[in-house]
């Protein structure tokens, strides 16, 4: 068996979770899934519009993987509360979604899309890496699976950020603009959901402070030293929680959910 991380001696099975743990874990799983669903939709907006065919295909692949991960998280939630993943994805309104604001921002230009995906991929890969050691076995299994896919995203987007930052004056300017705009939003990735700290204490979830330290150690030298970009001097925007959204989420959902809502009883789309 490879790459399963170090398992703690204590391990929680579904029935051993207290009601408080269950509620908090459902909240976290939903937040993880919502980030992936919304980002996948933004990536999907490039289908047929990416600069070159290979990138059109690559971004569609990445979006497909992220949706796969959302599916894994929502299956874990289904095991806990019987909820239907499709209902959650297609029949919740903007105020019911708990994604970070980073992923709902409009797709912008190519530099914006690649840099956002890079910041998210690095966070996701490091979070998954830590989550492989979860004492909640079903989550550890999902993390081990998803991490194997995520590393391809990071490989791809880190190269693109480099290529754009070191390319022409125009591509550098666009990448720097994207960083200025995105950097404050990235801080929210490391904001806990309610009662998350209790799950961290129990070893069920990774500690976000540790994940953030590893993330900064990875992306900051890459962005500044390797890519020659300047980190903006803007404060981290993590004040508001995951229930606060920009004006961009509602229109995104209305497009994403339109088919499902038009034919709510369809069994095959």
């Amino acid at each position, binding site marked *: *068996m*490879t*790459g*399963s991380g170090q398992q703690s001696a204590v391990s929680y099975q579904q029935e051993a979770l207290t009601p408080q743990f269950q509620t908090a874990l459902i909240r976290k799983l939903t937040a993880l899934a919502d980030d992936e669903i919304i980002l996948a939709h933004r990536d999907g907006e490039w289908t047929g519009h990416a600069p070159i065919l*290979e*990138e059109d*295909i*690559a971004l569609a*692949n*990445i979006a*497909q*993987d*992220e*949706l*796969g*991960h959302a*599916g*894994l998280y929502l299956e874990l939630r289904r095991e806990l509360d019987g909820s239907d993943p499709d209902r959650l994805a297609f029949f919740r309104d903007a105020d019911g979604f708990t994604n970070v604001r980073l992923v709902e921002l409009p797709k912008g230009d190519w530099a914006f899309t690649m840099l956002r995906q890079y910041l998210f991929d690095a966070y996701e*890969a*490091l979070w998954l*890496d830590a989550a492989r050691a979860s004492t909640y076995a079903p989550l550890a*299994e*999902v993390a*081990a*699976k*998803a*991490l*194997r*896919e995520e*590393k*391809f995203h*990071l*490989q*791809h987007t*880190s*190269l693109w950020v480099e290529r754009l930052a070191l390319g022409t004056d125009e591509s550098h300017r666009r990448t720097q603009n994207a960083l200025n705009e995105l950097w404050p939003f990235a801080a929210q990735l490391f904001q806990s959901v309610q009662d998350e700290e209790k799950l961290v204490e129990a070893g069920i979830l990774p500690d976000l402070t540790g994940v953030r330290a590893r993330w900064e150690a*990875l992306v900051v030298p890459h962005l500044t030293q390797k890519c020659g970009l300047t980190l903006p001097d803007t404060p981290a925007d993590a004040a508001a929680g995951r229930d606060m959204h920009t004006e961009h989420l509602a229109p995104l959902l209305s497009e994403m959910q339109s088919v499902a809502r038009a034919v709510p009883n369809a069994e095959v789309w």
Partner: protein
Amino acid sequence: MTAVHVTPEQVWTALAAVPDPEIPVVSITGMGMVRDVTVEGGRVAVTFTPTFSGCPALHVIRDSIGEAVRALGVEDVEVKSTLTPPWTSDWIQEDARERLRQYGIAPPAPAGDTPLITLDPEPTRCPRCGSLNVRMTASFGPTLCKRLYVCESCREPFEGFKSV
């Protein structure tokens, strides 16, 4: 209900004839996707593991497994999926690797315990001329499991299986 008696070996043989929906020259057993077969009386349970979590062919594979076992005369078939241990391209069998190569897809390099961040893609050999002088032209391909290359020796573009 009349229970037809089959052996696990018969079930494995039947599953070895089920093609991978996206690369039909290889079977789901050759790809290492079938994890377990149990036979209890007239009841057969097959456990498989997905290659990629977002793979759109998963429901096709699930249905094909059920059909293949039922074709043996078994009525009570359960198809389960598992994520543990996670699928790795190291489980692709030797003959399947050779079939991939003949089909024009470079088989995956050993994955082992892959590091988290590898900025350099794994060494890949041109499936046509065998040269290692190849260039990756796209890190994602027409399906989740493949990338695109061009051979600098024979000039042929080709697909390579991801080393996962």
